[in-house]
């Protein structure tokens, strides 16, 4: 040891100061178990991660969920179909409208109902608005947790503008409970379309600025590129859908493969990644936002006039003048509110493309006004289930970007 040191005074600024083998030496550590969470700021919800560390390497990780569990299924089974809507909001509080509409779509399929064209357009517009807010939160938070506060603020500014538009449309910013079985409960407010166009213009500028700060940023690229890699085969086997799957290069988007509502009328692309790493997931989300803006503009320009809800008093509440003026109106109003919509007995599995992937609903009806069984296939559940597979053997620091870009939402995972 001592004889390898040069006789002249060593320069502490160069590596020559330390012995070559010392630089490569394994850090003397003992195995350590740490708890991350349940309310760690980087876990996007309440998840406790039991991490077993060997130095900085994650040997074993066991995500423990369920802290938020509030009995979503049991609650739905004890209220009417329409009353389930506020519960579905809270599955993913960043894109509540997509959960609402996905659930309603499944119920309508069970009834065998075709909703008016204008209502379908309103659903597309609402879904894409909330896809934007969801991706903005995810991308902004990713930037924030890599140490960039400015991108987060830019994303939040855009999101706030969109929340204002959402509030004008639905009356609420986050938990919208928008839409009813058979259509929509309100029409677009007057002058709203023009305001959304203006918001999207402002938002595109914010998006460009945010992208400029992140996409070629040395720190951001170093921490996200090549970390959190999952191969396409593994992703499929785990049940990945949405941006996390498309980042692996698998072209699966329900909006294209099995178009619902009026998605087949719009011109948009599905961005694909190659490597399935964190950087690709970030890029896919970024591009999806631009595509959402394209869809929004087309939908708002081509929305037809017409009714927004089916004209069937067994499903939709009658117009107020009928309720106040006729006995039939009062009766159907009462029956709908007290007993709920009488969905014929049967079962259905239906899926829509939510911001994080396939949001599937398996509904069983026994022919009465309440659901017999509501199963939700939350897109965040499989992506979280695969975290141990992705991260074991990697560094602790890789866990943070991975957890950001898979965008697990506590509400839907823990139902």
């Amino acid at each position: 040891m001592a004889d390898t040191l040069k006789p002249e005074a060593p320069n502490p600024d160069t590596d020559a100061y330390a012995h070559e083998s010392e630089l490569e030496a394994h850090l003397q550590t003992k195995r350590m178990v740490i708890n991350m969470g349940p309310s760690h700021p980087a876990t996007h919800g309440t998840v406790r991660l039991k991490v077993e560390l060997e130095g900085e390497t994650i040997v074993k990780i066991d995500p423990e969920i369920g802290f938020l569990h509030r009995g979503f299924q049991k609650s739905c089974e004890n209220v009417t179909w329409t009353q389930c809507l506020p519960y579905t909001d809270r599955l993913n509080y960043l894109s509540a409208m997509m959960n609402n509409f996905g659930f309603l779509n499944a119920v309508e399929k069970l009834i065998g109902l075709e909703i008016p064209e204008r209502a379908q357009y309103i659903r597309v517009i609402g879904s894409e608005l909330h896809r934007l807010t969801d991706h903005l939160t995810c991308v902004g938070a990713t930037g924030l947790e890599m140490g960039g506060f400015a991108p987060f603020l830019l994303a939040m500014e855009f999101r706030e503008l969109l929340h204002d538009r959402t509030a004008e449309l639905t009356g609420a910013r986050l938990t919208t409970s928008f839409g009813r079985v058979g259509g929509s409960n309100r029409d677009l407010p007057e002058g709203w379309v023009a305001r959304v166009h203006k918001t999207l213009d402002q938002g595109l500028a914010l998006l460009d600025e945010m992208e400029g700060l992140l996409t070629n940023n040395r720190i951001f690229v170093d921490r996200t590129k090549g970390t959190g890699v999952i191969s396409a085969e593994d992703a499929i086997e785990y049940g990945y859908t949405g941006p996390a799957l498309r980042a692996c290069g698998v072209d699966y988007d329900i909006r294209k493969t099995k178009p619902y509502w009026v998605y087949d009328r719009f011109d948009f692309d599905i961005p694909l990644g190659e490597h399935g790493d964190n950087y690709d997931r970030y890029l896919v989300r970024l591009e999806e936002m631009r595509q959402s803006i394209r869809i929004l503009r087309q939908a708002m320009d081509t929305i037809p006039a017409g009714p927004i809800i089916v004209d069937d008093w067994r499903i939709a509440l009658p117009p107020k003048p009928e309720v106040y003026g006729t006995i039939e109106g009062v009766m159907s109003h009462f029956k709908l509110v007290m007993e709920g919509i009488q969905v014929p007995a049967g079962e259905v599995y239906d899926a829509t493309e939510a911001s994080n992937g396939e949001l599937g609903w398996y509904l069983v009806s026994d022919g009465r006004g309440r659901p017999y069984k509501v199963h939700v296939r939350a897109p965040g559940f499989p992506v979280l289930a695969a975290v141990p597979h992705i991260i074991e053997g990697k560094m602790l620091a890789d866990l943070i970007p991975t957890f950001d870009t898979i965008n697990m939402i506590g509400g839907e995972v823990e139902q």
Partner: protein
Amino acid sequence: MDRVSAQLPEAVADRYVDRTGGAWAVIHADSLPKVAAFLKNDPELEFKLFGSIDAVDRLHLAENDPRFEVVYFLYSLKRHEHVRLKVRVSEANPVVPTLVPLFRGANWWERLTFDFYGIRFDGHPDLRRILLYDEFEGHPLRKDYALRDRQPLIPERPIKDIFRGPGTSGLS
């Protein structure tokens, strides 16, 4: 479904199409892994994307024997189709073979089904509760589990609103 019936006729107990056009196959419990492996590996089907697992407690339905139905959803990226499978198990012996060796994604869904319905998955590597705590007794999504039954780990404080508030059964 036609291919499954042709290849493994003894595995399929029943087949039907629901009102919305979804095709279902009811599978005997012991041949479930065989059917799933066939669906996954057959070059024309390739149902590789793992959807989800859940169960239905048919206690209050007209047809309720056997009591539980375990439902499986798989998706084929090649054909862009969902496949829906069902396995019926009785209350006395709710055991279904596991799909974890075939689909790693089945791991957590099987734990979820076990947690809420008490259906055991034979051969599952780590079958424990996933959402509820270990001390929890019973399986809350069974229809005979009362809606307002509470099992707090920490005693709850009594509060005045006896119908809606925590800490009360709602019945008193």
